[in-house]
């Protein structure tokens, strides 16, 4: 690792000020950033740790909305969202391993937008709102391709707000070395629409499979997905873990399983 300083502010306002320094970067749970720093792929002058900000750690229900503080760990979401939104709790419970879930945060996952990260698929499928220290961004506008988001320099994800679906499920087909999803699909059924968010598959990062959303809105059953043509294989990631065609096929399979498992 290159040398840098570390600060631990206790409020969002202090963190924003600390991030005003050139080359300063926020540190969430560190479960992605620390391995990146070890490989010298990042060279911040200062890390601003968000872990001491109590105001960024909560799971709160407000009517039909579940609001999760940006500093909330995957482990906490797995426990505290379980009764309100089992599909999302199930997603969080399967990120990484127990030690990773005790540190890694929803804000870090959403900010990083790894093309194989789990949370972005749920945020897109549900039409979540990403709340930062300065504004609110709709998920559709927020995710802008692999590792790309609408966030500006120094902007902090303080909350992610999910409309709670009637039924939902996350299906993760694991890449067996990293255990990240090779393909992950989040299915969310609302009274008037269905959301299908796909991660791990596309060269353009997380996306909504709109053909499946339309088919499922009229008939929420695995059969409704069976007749669809799979997304175009040439847009899919192709690597030693799976070809584009394999990933495209898995999207259909995981969507069907998600519909069948939704609760």
């Amino acid at each position, binding site marked *: *690792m290159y040398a840098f300083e570390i600060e631990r502010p206790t409020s969002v306002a202090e963190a924003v000020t600390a991030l005003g320094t050139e080359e300063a970067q926020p540190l969430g749970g*560190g479960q992605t950033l620390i391995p990146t720093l070890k490989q010298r792929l990042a060279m911040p002058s200062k890390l601003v740790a968000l872990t001491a900000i109590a105001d960024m750690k909560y799971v709160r229900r407000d009517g039909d909305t579940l609001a999760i503080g940006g500093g909330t760990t995957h482990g906490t979401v797995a426990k505290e969202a379980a009764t309100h939104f089992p599909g999302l709790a199930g997603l969080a419970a399967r990120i990484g*391993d127990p*030690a990773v879930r005790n540190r890694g945060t929803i804000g870090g996952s959403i900010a990083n937008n790894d093309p194989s990260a789990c949370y972005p698929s749920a945020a897109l499928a549900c039409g979540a709102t990403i709340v930062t220290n300065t504004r609110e961004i709709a998920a559709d506008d927020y995710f802008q391709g692999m590792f790309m988001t609408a966030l500006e320099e120094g902007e902090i994800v303080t909350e992610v707000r999910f409309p709670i679906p009637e039924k939902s499920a996350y299906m993760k087909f694991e890449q067996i070395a990293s255990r990240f999803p090779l393909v992950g699909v989040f299915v969310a059924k609302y009274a008037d629409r269905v959301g299908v968010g796909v991660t791990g598959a596309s060269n353009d990062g997380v996306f909504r499979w709109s053909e499946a959303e339309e088919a499922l809105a009229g008939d929420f059953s695995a059969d409704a997905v069976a007749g669809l043509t799979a997304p175009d294989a040439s847009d899919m990631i192709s690597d030693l873990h799976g070809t584009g065609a394999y990933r495209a096929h898995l999207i259909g399979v995981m969507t069907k399983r998600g519909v069948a498992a939704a609760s």
Partner: protein
Amino acid sequence: MTEVTMTVNGKSVRRAVRGNELLVEFLREQLRLTGTHVGCDTSQCGACCVHVNGELVKACSMFAAEAEGAEVTTIEGVANADGSLNVIQQAFQDHHGLQCGFCTPGMVMSAASLLKENPKPTEAEVRHWLQGNICRCTGYHNIVKAIMAASGQDVATVAAE
């Protein structure tokens, strides 16, 4: 350098740390508690597992400065008060749950967290929990047996197939 104060295995310590000093470097190099191992650079192997405020954490994936005010427990701090092996450590010995021993400190710390949360796990739950602890030697069967035994369950049928 910043000053950090934490409690490690019941003793309060205060030291100056670099901004980029990992908790595992602090434990091993400053405190000479070398039972916590480093097996990878990618946060995947779990050889470095310790407890921070009672929670399982990879000490290679947290900075020492972030442990300000925390209670940290390492493998050196888990034996019984009289110095004998605790029930999990003893079970690893009884069931041959280690070969080279490199992964063992992390395995024992991880197992302790599991049994705190789930005192009578099924074999499948033990295997799922150990996803973040990699062992090159044992093939895991005897580790799973040891953890089941430490939870007071019969292990005759564990990994029987």
